[in-house]
């Protein structure tokens, strides 16, 4: 049941992206291009998604626990750190370069566009690279003290 509900949530998510046209990078670039022909449709998609999620979360989080798990796994970190800001800026530059981000890219796999595949392979590479770089930096900052 857990996997079925995750599957349904994923499918619903990508159908929403498809119907709203957000799987097409051109619509995303159109929104980001404020000095050109501005396309506000992303704003409408975003606002309706946030309103539905906001109301739904409020109702759901009143429960003791989700249906199939013992507890909610909601982030509790409230610290605005350098990692959050640097990471978001780097993500934004990549997003602006091609108009693709993880959700729409994965939702477009069935379209068979080789550009999407190249993007996804590079994206997974970037995720793996980040892990190794962060692990390296952490190791430099917190050297193991030998006895």
């Amino acid at each position, binding site marked *: 049941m857990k996997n*079925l509900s*995750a*599957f349904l949530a*994923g499918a*619903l*998510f*990508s*159908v*929403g992206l*498809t*119907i*709203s*046209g957000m*799987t*097409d990078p051109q619509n995303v*670039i159109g929104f*980001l291009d404020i000095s*050109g022909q501005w396309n506000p*449709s*992303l704003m*409408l*998609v*975003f606002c*309706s*998604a946030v309103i539905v999620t906001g109301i*739904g979360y409020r109702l*759901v989080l009143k429960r003791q626990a989700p249906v199939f798990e013992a507890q*909610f*796994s*909601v*982030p509790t970190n*409230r610290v*605005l750190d350098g*990692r*959050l800001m640097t990471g*978001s*800026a*780097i*993500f*934004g*530059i*990549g*997003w*602006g*370069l091609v108009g*693709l*981000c*993880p959700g729409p890219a*994965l*939702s*477009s796999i*069935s*379209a068979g566009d080789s550009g999407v595949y190249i993007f996804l392979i590079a*994206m997974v*590479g*970037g*995720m*793996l690279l*980040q892990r190794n*770089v962060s692990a390296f930096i952490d190791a430099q900052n917190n050297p193991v003290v030998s006895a």
Partner: protein
Amino acid sequence: MNTTIIVQSLLGGTLIGAAAVLLMFTLGRISGVSGITSGLLSLNLKKNDLWRLAFIIGLISGPVIYASAGGRLPELTVDTRLPYLIAGGLLVGFGSTLGSGCASGHGVCGIARISPRSLVATVIFVAAAMATVFFTR
């Protein structure tokens, strides 16, 4: 913008929201696509992580199911420049993992929870993306 686009945008956004609420209601999880994906890139995956794979298979299958039910799939205009695709993918993967979220996790779910981290992240990545488009197009 015509009425059709407005209706499609609002309907699509509502479905995205419904998907996020469904995942929170059933598994208590945030629908952050970058986090769900990067959680799978581990050498010691546990049975507990299977839902991540199910969510991604759902993401991939959604448009196929929609099309087989008679839905019309939009044309995709994807960049064909190899350096842009590679750099874009690397930066999106690296940045979303470092910043703990992308447009779905921070943008939709985080702002819906009024999380200060997600608000800051979203303002930064939208601004960075707009600046990038301004300088590259």
